[in-house]
């Protein structure tokens, strides 16, 4: 019986110090495998394609249903989630690399801290803490809620930053993900109470909204189909108005 094999070429790295190398693996095929299950097979039996014992490949995963973003990696050249990368649909050999936009921790594990720092920078939340009960807050029209739900699908996976030609080591650009979250929270009836503050954050300092070069790769790459370029264009409109209010003064500037 000739056994069908899966051929993997994985870009590995011992630690954050650099020095990446490629290691090949051949695994027995099973039906309905995804990249994660192939990596689990390597962990079970860490032997490379030359039959030599090696260390198990490190990777991250959590939800296994494409909502957490943790297992993002570059698979056959394109960044995506490895949990929904089905082996049957991938060209062999399957090439796995860490996303190059983020510092590598080990093998396929990257440190996405910059994305979470960006969310803090733009205050991507609805502030409700106070010294007294603020009450239920204004209602949101159902149609708007459904629209906002699409923006809320962002899982901070980093694929849009990886695809963006302006997010790189030469630029400070914050990237599409956090920008779209500004639009989400500015659209929320309670979140809108801090609209000007979020817009000003996008205009202050280096690497803000204006660093977008409109290559529009992000909207093509986003696994959740979030209208990132529409968010960016809408924020361009908002910040243009905000900059006029800031410059000329306004009694409606909040």
């Amino acid at each position, binding site marked *: 019986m000739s056994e069908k094999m899966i051929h993997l070429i994985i870009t590995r790295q011992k630690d954050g110090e650099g020095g990446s190398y490629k290691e090949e693996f051949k695994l027995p095929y099973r039906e309905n495998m995804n990249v994660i299950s192939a990596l689990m097979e390597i962990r079970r039996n860490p032997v490379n394609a030359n039959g030599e014992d090696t260390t198990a490949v490190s990777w991250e995963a959590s939800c296994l249903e494409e909502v957490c973003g943790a297992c993002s990696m570059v698979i056959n050249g394109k960044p995506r989630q490895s949990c929904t990368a089905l082996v049957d649909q991938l060209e062999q050999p399957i090439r796995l690399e860490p996303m190059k936009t983020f510092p590598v921790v080990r093998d396929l594990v990257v440190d996405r801290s910059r994305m979470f720092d960006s969310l803090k920078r733009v205050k991507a939340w609805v502030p409700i803490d106070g010294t007294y009960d603020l009450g239920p807050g204004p209602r949101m029209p159902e149609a708007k809620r459904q629209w906002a739900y699409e923006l809320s699908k962002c899982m901070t996976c980093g694929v849009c930053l990886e695809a963006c030609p302006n997010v790189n080591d030469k630029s400070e650009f914050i990237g599409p993900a956090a920008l779209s979250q500004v639009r989400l929270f500015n659209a929320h009836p309670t979140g809108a109470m801090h609209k000007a503050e979020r817009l000003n954050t996008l205009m202050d300092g280096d690497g803000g909204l204006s660093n977008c070069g409109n290559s529009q*790769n992000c909207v093509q790459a986003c696994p959740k189909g979030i209208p990132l370029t529409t968010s960016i264009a809408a924020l361009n409109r908002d910040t243009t108005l905000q900059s006029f209010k800031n410059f000329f003064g306004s009694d409606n500037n909040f």
Partner: protein
Amino acid sequence: MSQNREFFLRKLHSLLGVIPVGLFLLVHLGVNYFSVRGEEEYNQAVAFMEGLPFRYAMEIFIIFIPILFHAIYGLYIAFQARHNTGTYSYFRNWMFRLQRTTGVITLIFVAWHVWDTRIAAALGQEVNFDMMADIVANPVALVAYIIGITATTFHFANGLWSFAITWGITVSPRSQQISTYITLGIFVLLTFVGIRSILAFVM
């Protein structure tokens, strides 16, 4: 404006590319087209442009300073990108790349063009039909002009597309799609005008 210097510079860069540099380009291409009507009409048009009141003030504030800022800050923007059209060969990603490439080509072309015509004129050479005919009599110069004109019209037309996004005029995907068609049309029309004008000097 203390903190948002980059935002201001980017917006200024976008604005200057259209007003006044883009408008100047339209006037320039329009006046060039007199060459198609023959030597006499072309020389009349050139004499009219040279005789405009406040000529030096207009040249400095409407042309030289805005172009210099747009070019220098544009180079900084262009070399900040790490192009990835190999992995993401989408139409807009190619346009993003071409916008930066044609910007650099346009800068080189304009520098050479200003040296050959405006600075030559300042040093005493007369600007007229014969001057241009002499320049493009050299086939290498003619090809350089055709490449330069095409790069310039592309950079302007595609720049209009991103201008509309940068200022929040086109927000929805559909509006951006329509402005893609319109700006491509502008590119084709302006390229025709530019190349027909330059070819009139060799025919």
